[in-house]
């Protein structure tokens, strides 16, 4: 007798997705919309106007208390002391050997209160890690806030204007955060995003999420699913944990040395310092396919390396992707041969990102 698999979790916006006719798929244990009208249409809506994504499946960890800063310096790769109250910062979470556990955004809500947003697939492991390290910091308190927040991202050239129209005050500037009232509800507005466009990520209580979502959709934000979220971030050359990032490699190979400040003494700093000083043996590059074909995660690169992500770029209308290749073969302009399911496709390493919208 087989037991039924655990039911998938649903976000506070599930009914909205069903009503909009979304195609729902399993993602990290959640039942999520992969698309509504179509990945390419949603992608272009974000590039040209504004799209709205339900990202409530992502996790939130709150760190507070007099030792909050110290604890986060120990956990996160970046220099947390550089985040002013109301600021936002990207970092990675590493193991002792430098392997990447997750990539995260941390927002400083108050002097001693921070909110870290985790990837859905890693949230439970991240929280367990935070708790175990917090044992050494008695005046820091960590709590799992995933059930207290719904989150939606409004992204695109018209996104800020659409959200501003319902807000009781000017929205935070890029890479800042602050509480605002939007459509009558209290919302934590984070001027960050994962698409390469202007926009904001909005955190609100689960009870208020459907109303906020509907208000923004009425104002013209086009519902967009995980399919478009992936093509947008790939065009912008943002990393996806499980593709570009994993415990197998450190941040230096991934090109994330910029968010690592070894002098802050984070877990893994020594390994990262060593990789930085000796130079990594592999580097993450962006490539375009020359001609037909779409490379996919896992495709081997001739001469060493592998594709981490690949798709058809809706903006460029050709196959694009990222791959780890030997450091000596990572210069822009290098020709690559990629084995796509038994067929060799020619590709060329290009500058990141593929699509650059914001200055």
């Amino acid at each position, binding site marked *: 007798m087989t037991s039924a698999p655990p039911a998938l979790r649903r976000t506070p916006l599930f009914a909205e997705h069903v009503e909009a006719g979304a195609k729902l798929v399993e993602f990290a244990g959640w039942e999520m919309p992969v698309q509504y009208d179509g990945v390419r249409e949603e992608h272009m809506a974000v590039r040209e106007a504004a799209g709205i994504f339900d990202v409530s499946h992502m996790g939130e960890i709150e760190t507070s208390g007099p030792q909050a800063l110290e604890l986060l310096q120990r956990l996160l790769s970046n220099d947390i002391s550089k985040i002013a109250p109301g600021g936002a910062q990207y970092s990675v979470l590493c193991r002792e050997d430098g392997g990447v556990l997750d990539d995260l955004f941390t927002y400083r809500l108050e002097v001693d209160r921070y909110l870290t947003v985790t990837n859905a697939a890693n949230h439970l492991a991240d929280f367990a890690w935070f708790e175990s390290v917090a044992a050494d910091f008695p005046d820091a308190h960590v709590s799992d806030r995933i059930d207290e927040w719904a989150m939606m991202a409004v992204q695109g050239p018209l996104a800020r204007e659409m959200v501003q129209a319902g807000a009781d005050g000017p929205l935070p500037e890029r890479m800042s955060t602050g509480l605002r009232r939007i459509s009558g509800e209290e919302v934590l507005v984070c001027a960050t995003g994962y698409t390469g466009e202007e926009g904001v990520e909005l955190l609100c209580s689960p009870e208020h999420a459907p109303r906020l979502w509907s208000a923004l959709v009425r104002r013209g934000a086009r519902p967009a699913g995980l399919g478009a979220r992936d093509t947008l971030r790939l065009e912008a050359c943002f990393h996806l944990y499980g593709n570009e990032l994993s415990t197998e490699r450190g941040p230096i190979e991934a090109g994330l040395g910029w968010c690592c400040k070894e002098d802050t003494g984070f877990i893994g700093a020594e390994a990262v310092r060593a990789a930085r000083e000796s130079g990594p043996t592999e580097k993450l590059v962006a490539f375009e396919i020359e001609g037909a074909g779409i490379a996919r995660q896992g495709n081997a690169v001739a001469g060493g390396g592998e594709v981490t992500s690949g798709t*058809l770029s809706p903006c460029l209308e050709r196959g694009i992707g990222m791959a780890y290749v030997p450091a000596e073969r990572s210069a822009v302009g290098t020709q690559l041969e990629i084995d796509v399911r038994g067929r060799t496709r020619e590709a060329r390493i290009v500058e990141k990102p593929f699509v650059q919208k914001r200055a």
Partner: protein
Amino acid sequence: MAQASYPDDLLYHAEHDWARIDPDDESQATLGITWYAQDSLGEVVFFDPPASGTTVTKDSPYTEVESVKAVSDVIAPLSGEIVAVNEALRDNPATINEDPYGEGWLVKVRLSDPSERESLMDARTYQGTLDG
């Protein structure tokens, strides 16, 4: 194609593929994917036809269609040798979504064992296998 449809003159395979036996020559058939298959895939963005002369084997994959997110195998409903491929799909792969039974045909085959058709379903039976 907005509305689900499953023409009566076709034979259907459980892996969401169809075969149209040539009314003038029962040893020839046209193959493609069903409305259900193209709907599940989403927009087809890439189709690289197999070569004429390739052998296809019933119940085995003989080609692929690609959406933005993923590559999907296409299963042969019948066995035989490919005698024609739909080259127009190279430039317009979305035709597979728009007209899966007409302009979106994938290959034509000379059947090696026409009696294999007995194992395929008619439109009504196939529809019965689909989710409500």
